């Protein structure tokens, strides 16, 4: 029964093609009881603060006392004429591209390998998930040392090759590649977990039937697994891009935004140039710009890519 159901649920008919049920009293009871708690909590602690933070962006405010110096859109002017901010935007874009091209495929490949029956599957999953669990302050610190030209892994490599010490984190052109590597290391396990959960929702009987019909492993993957994993992949891409836009925690201990502000992301820019300089209005402006970018992306993505989910 279930096997037939899943076969019918393949990509030709969207999984969400539920017949539109008439709203019954029971249905309304669900809406009234199930929704308000989440909505209330969210409104109080997320939505209202966002609006207020947006309001602060029109002020020159140092965070002490109430905001007093109204300056209209000047913060936004400073923002877009600041080359470091523009560079941060570029950096965020690089993280997105890198994640989509390298991180997600890697996560998927690993997930396929560890979702099923393989010796030590649970241990592998745990190991790959571990970087995500490790607090950013520790991760950034250790990687800072990994890249150290004298004592780190990079140092060991240059010594082995007989080359002079190379300080990747002091290199204006290439320091950002260090950030990409650490982002990859830290988050691919997260996406792997999402894919594992998705894979485990796929009925094994389907795949066995296909195998018995003579389909190869690759064919099984391409024609059954991947399409059924579609919704989860689209979600994972969504989270990946949103996450890439908000990368911050590891930047601080790893590079501090340097050298020469070449490794900032929008949120680290917000932190270093706004919050730590007591320019709360300015940091709110950065937050608003980031928010608008995220909303635009989310809106477009959900309309177009996730239309049927």
């Amino acid at each position, binding site marked *: 029964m279930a096997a037939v159901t899943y076969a019918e649920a393949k990509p030709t008919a969207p999984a969400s093609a539920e017949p539109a049920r008439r709203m019954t009293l029971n249905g309304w009871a669900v809406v009234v009881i199930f929704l308000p708690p989440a909505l209330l909590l969210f409104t*109080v602690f997320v939505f209202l603060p966002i609006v207020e933070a947006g309001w602060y962006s029109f002020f020159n405010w140092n965070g002490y006392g109430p905001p007093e110096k109204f300056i209209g859109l000047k913060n936004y002017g400073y923002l877009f004429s600041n080359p470091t901010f523009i560079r941060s935007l570029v950096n965020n874009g690089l993280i997105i591209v890198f994640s989509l091209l390298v991180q997600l495929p890697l996560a998927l490949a690993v997930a396929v390998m560890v979702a099923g029956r393989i010796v030590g599957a649970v241990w592998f999953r745990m190991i790959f998930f571990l970087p995500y669990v490790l607090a950013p302050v520790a991760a950034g610190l250790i990687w800072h040392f990994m890249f150290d030209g004298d004592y780190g892994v990079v140092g060991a490599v240059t010594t082995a090759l007989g080359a002079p010490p190379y300080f990747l984190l002091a290199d204006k052109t290439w320091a950002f590649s260090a950030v990409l590597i650490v982002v990859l290391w830290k988050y691919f396990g997260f996406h792997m977990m999402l894919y594992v959960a998705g894979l485990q929702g796929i009925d094994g009987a389907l795949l066995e039937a296909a195998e018995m019909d003579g389909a190869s492993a690759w064919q099984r993957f391409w024609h059954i697994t991947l399409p059924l994993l579609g919704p989860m992949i689209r979600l994972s891409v969504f989270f990946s891009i949103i996450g890439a836009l908000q990368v911050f925690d590891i930047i601080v201990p790893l590079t501090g935004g340097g050298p020469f502000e070449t490794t900032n992301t929008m949120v680290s820019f917000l932190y270093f140039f706004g919050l730590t300089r007591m320019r709360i209005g300015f940091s709110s402006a950065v937050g608003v710009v980031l928010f608008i970018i995220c909303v635009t992306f989310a809106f477009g993505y959900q309309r177009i890519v996730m239309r049927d989910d």
Partner: protein
Amino acid sequence: MTEAADVIRSPGRRAGGLASIVAFAALVVLAGAVLFPVFATALNGFKDLSEFRTNPFGLPHVWQWSNYWDILTGYRYWQVLGNSLLIAFFTVTLTLVLSAMAAFTFAHLRFFGDRFLMSYIQLGLLFPLATAIVPIFIRIRGLGLLESHWGVILPQVAFSLAMGVLLIRNAFKQLPSELLDAAMMDGCGYFRYFLFITLPLSGPILATVAVISFVESWNGYLLPLIVLNSESRYPWTLGLMAYQGQYMTSWQLVLAFITLTILPAILMFLMAQRWIVAGLTAGAVKS
């Protein structure tokens, strides 16, 4: 137990010879590379500061067992661990409950404004907590939640609702709609369906959301910093401050401390993995 479930659900039952050995080897290499920095973190907890700086990736010349031992036998470690667990437990529970409820509503019911509300909740994903920290502080203070763990728990739940709702709704929709139709024809209402069918069949995704929510709460720093004042309520991220100074930080102790605080997160992960398996078995029997 793992084996049985894996046989039922695995994408490929008999792993073919050479390909699987190569795959396994690749996994081992990757695992090693991934584990290396984590391992280095733990290892550096056994060194003293000077050795950490000059020999961060070698074995300690002198194993400073006292670093770890002092932390484990000190009162502070257990106190901050307890606080972190408390906060994380309530955050995860509330997140799961509220997200699942909202996700269920969005998955099965169509009503005026449902798409709008769905998008509304997702705003939480699109905004880093740090930007709104001042207004959040004012709000928490206004509600009299300063100094209370709930001042940390509630905003954390609010921010993780977006991801929870998205993931869980997605999983709920993957369940065959015929099940719901059949259940309703049998006279089962939405609430009972939610409790007795939807939830048990959604083990993997609920466990996943639980783990993600746990980790986010576990590593939370900014919110507890702003809300909590008394050291007796600090989670471990604030307890870490004791090892950090204005000019100098005892990094080796920081790393030892952090290593010891990863353990509960790992335990949580392993527990969640078992829950996934249990959920799978239940689902298989059902179908």
